């Protein structure tokens, strides 16, 4: 076998998981079954806040056919172990949101299980609910960040500009709804299904079922999209399936239909953001003040860390000597809000980026030049006082996007178009400059203590072992490429083990744009260790035949040789969790996004004509897959800006269907021009930084800026719908 295809990182190789997905052979959780399977359903509270007194079962219903689990049946602890363990698996004593699970019912026949739900009622005593985070008296987390002297800087500013911004819920709308299948195998309780973080789920099961770790196994099934929505909620749904299977001693499948998934699972945090910015006469930033309030929903879940990322990103990719940020996450009686691609950054960056429009208006300075003047560059100090030494692509992406889209020409052309009273539309072009920190914020990565391994079996198979999940983003392919490149062997020599907690080490959750950069770094390190072990076998990495020969010698006792790498923070990095000062992320990615749109003067319908975006994320491991991430994230950002509107009343989402919660269809998506700017970082494998979330941050503020250009009005709340714009269009 030849090793001509050694150059692997940087090549657009086809995804390793594509064959099964293209042929329909990939098995998602709802495609799986087991002999003796029970179908499970969830009884939910329907009231937002109440004292729970008990359940009333209709005596005429054949309950002996069902398996029922209530809070008192939980053998372990009734609290999902997370940052806090305030969220119960099943409501006990109190109900805190209208979708709270109260009991679980399983039956051999799915329709009968649903029928059973109609024969139980909840006896409870209503308590006053809180639906608006601004009225909440319960704060999950407060963060304050201070740099320099804001008060003095404001008094010395030539211009001070203030603004209020508000962001809505956003639903993930992964095409595969959440689900889990629990069963017994070899005296272990196994749970498989759709998820991002198998080791989070394992921890949840240990708490709920109170079995030792070796009697529990979490296995990822093919997963149809996550976007953060399958970060923490699987703790609940896998926990529920496991509780039923534990009690029933039979396999149990629990899969939500779309309505239940949308109503009960997490959303992007709604946010209220107030900004105050001071600048000198030339437009240099002197002071930035931000006040953020996130609606956390009923339990803390991920709100403290979403808040933490929002706070660090609240001043944008700019250098400013004086900063004051205060962030709070408050409780309301709605289902908990959670992780969604961007994790607080899209909310914060919408406000900062749109704020430039207000600043440009007040100062008479150009919004693009203002950004250029203040953008982070090598040597800049960030909001947290982190000095950026290298790989700071803010100005490079700005220039690349401006050039690719011919921004100045388009802007002048659209302005002329809008000045013509005969035009049937108004046209606008808008820009945003955004960044995203890769990996967990602050000391998070150190706390995770991630491990990944590369193994060599006696038959010559090289395997990547990590708990990181393929959820559509292409991580399985990227890790394969990184391993192949480190070893200097062809791509197809490598296989990636399916995440199964009995087989792979805990490489941390598949979140926070960390898989390629952090886990990829560990895979590279482990692969290099394997390469060193093979150094005594000349030619072992040159042909499969010699590799097999070497493997037979190295794999004593027939077991595989396994090299494991453990995370260590970049040298010299420090973080202070109390003052929020220090090195917040090992690396930041940067993106400049330009949106061109037109608004029908009669109907106020908005059509996005084109999106141009330049991204710098170190180096693209696989440009084709990277472009797929960018285009997909960008369209989610456009949906957030213009279409997606979760309607809530009394704490419940009213439009939990794809019919009335609109995500973009192919006809809503514009043609996209994508530019990848290289700027390798020393902190990621072969120069790569994280990419997954970055594409989500830029489109919404660029849309709002384009709407400002078209209509002359700044819309400071999302989504910007025709009914919001129409009253502000002057009729000829």
């Amino acid at each position, binding site marked *: 076998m030849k090793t001509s295809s050694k150059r692997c990182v940087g090549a657009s190789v086809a995804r390793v*998981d594509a064959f099964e997905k293209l042929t*329909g052979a990939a098995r998602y959780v709802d495609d799986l079954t087991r002999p003796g399977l029970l179908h499970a359903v969830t009884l939910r509270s329907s009231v937002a806040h109440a004292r729970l007194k008990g359940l009333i079962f209709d005596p005429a219903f054949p309950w002996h056919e069902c398996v029922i689990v209530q809070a008192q049946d939980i053998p372990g602890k009734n609290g999902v172990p997370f940052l806090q363990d305030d969220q119960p698996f099943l409501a006990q004593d109190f109900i805190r949101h209208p979708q709270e699970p109260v009991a679980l019912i399983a039956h051999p026949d799915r329709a009968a299980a649903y029928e059973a739900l109609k024969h139980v009622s909840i006896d409870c005593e209503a308590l006053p609910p809180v639906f608006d985070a601004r009225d909440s008296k319960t704060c999950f987390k407060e963060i304050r960040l201070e740099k320099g002297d804001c008060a003095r800087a404001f008094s010395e500013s030539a211009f001070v500009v203030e603004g209020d911004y508000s962001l809505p819920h956003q639903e993930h709308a992964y*095409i*595969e709804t959440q689900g889990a299948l629990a069963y017994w195998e070899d005296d272990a309780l196994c749970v498989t299904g759709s998820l991002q973080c198998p080791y989070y789920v394992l921890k949840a099961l240990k708490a709920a079922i109170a079995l030792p770790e070796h009697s529990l196994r979490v296995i990822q099934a093919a997963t149809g999209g996550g976007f953060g929505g399958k970060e923490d909620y699987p703790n609940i749904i896998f926990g529920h399936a496991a509780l039923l299977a534990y009690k029933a001693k039979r396999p149990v499948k629990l899969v939500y239909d779309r309505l239940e998934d949308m109503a009960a699972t997490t959303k992007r945090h709604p946010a209220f953001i107030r900004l105050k910015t001071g600048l000198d006469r030339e437009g240099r930033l002197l002071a930035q003040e931000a006040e953020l309030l996130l609606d956390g929903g009923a339990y803390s879940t991920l709100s403290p860390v979403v808040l933490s990322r929002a706070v660090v990103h609240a001043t944008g990719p700019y250098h400013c000597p004086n900063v004051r940020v205060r962030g709070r996450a408050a409780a309301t009686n709605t289902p908990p809000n959670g992780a969604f691609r961007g994790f607080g950054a899209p909310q914060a960056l919408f406000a900062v980026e749109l704020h430039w429009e207000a600043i440009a208006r007040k100062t008479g300075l150009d919004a693009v030049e203002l950004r250029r003047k203040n953008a982070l560059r090598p040597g800049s100090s960030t909001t947290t006082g982190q000095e950026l030494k290298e790989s700071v692509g803010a100005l490079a992406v700005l220039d690349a996007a401006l050039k690719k889209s011919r921004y100045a020409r388009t802007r002048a052309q659209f302005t002329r178009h809008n000045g013509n009273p005969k035009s049937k539309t108004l046209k606008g072009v808008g820009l945003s400059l955004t960044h995203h920190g890769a990996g967990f914020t602050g000391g998070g990565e150190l706390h995770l203590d991630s491990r990944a391994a590369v193994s060599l079996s006696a038959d010559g198979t090289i395997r990547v072992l990590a708990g990181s999940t393929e959820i559509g*983003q292409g991580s399985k392919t990227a890790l394969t490429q990184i391993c192949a490149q480190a070893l200097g062997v062809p791509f197809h020599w490598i296989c990636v083990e399916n995440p199964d907690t009995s087989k792979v080490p805990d490489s941390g959750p598949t979140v926070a744009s960390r898989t390629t950069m952090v886990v990829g770094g560990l895979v590279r390190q482990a692969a290099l260790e394997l390469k060193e072990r093979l150094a005594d076998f000349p030619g072992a990495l040159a042909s499969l035949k010699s590799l097999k020969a070497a493997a037979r010698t190295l794999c004593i006792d027939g077991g595989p040789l396994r090299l494991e790498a453990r995370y260590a923070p970049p040298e010299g990095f420090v973080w202070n969790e109390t003052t929020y000062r220090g090195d917040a992320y090992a690396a930041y990615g940067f993106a400049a996004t330009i949106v061109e749109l037109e608004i029908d003067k009669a109907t106020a319908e908005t059509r996005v004509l084109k999106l141009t975006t330049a991204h710098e994320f170190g180096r693209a491991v696989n440009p084709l897959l990277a472009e797929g991430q960018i285009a997909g994230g960008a369209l989610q950002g456009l949906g957030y800006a213009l279409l997606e509107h979760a309607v809530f009343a009394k704490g419940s989402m009213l439009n939990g269907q794809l019919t009335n919660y609109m995500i973009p269809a*192919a006809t809503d998506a514009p*043609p996209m021009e994508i530019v990848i700017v290289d700027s390798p970082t020393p902190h990621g494998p072969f120069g790569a930084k994280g990419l997954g979330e970055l594409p989500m941050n830029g489109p919404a503020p660029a849309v709002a800026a384009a709407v400002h250009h078209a209509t002359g009005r700044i819309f400071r709340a999302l989504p910007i719908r025709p009914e919001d714009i129409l009253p502000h269009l002057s009729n000829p």
Partner: protein
Amino acid sequence: MITFIVNKRRLKYKGPPFKRLLDVLREDFELTGTKEGCGEGECGACSVLMDGQLVNACLIPAGQAEGKTIETVESLAKHKTLAPVQKAFLDHGGSQCGMCTPGMLLSAVAYKRRKGKNSAAAIRKHLAGNLCRCTGYQPIIDSVRAWLKKS
């Protein structure tokens, strides 16, 4: 009893006539390549071809399929060899999480059979009934265009 042809095989179905074709395919005949995304005809994940027409299998009662010819994603590849449309999706990144992929592929097949134009705008319009949350559609449009160009 209901008889129909699925992927060139004549099949007999004896269950309730109002069971959704989607469930009949998935549960009675283990053809799980056809996916459920929304259960109300909005997302197109369950798209199959029925007598050559693109339909949402979640909206078709089994009885309506009597005597019809059904094609699902499982009919495309031959003996581990991807069909050209699948190969185009592989080469151009048209599939990410894979849940919309079977429906997208059949939608593309329907488009080609009715001799749809190889223009991005026309393809977008045709695919508007198949939702994808991963790709931003751009790689899917690229895949379909490359396939149409090649064939």
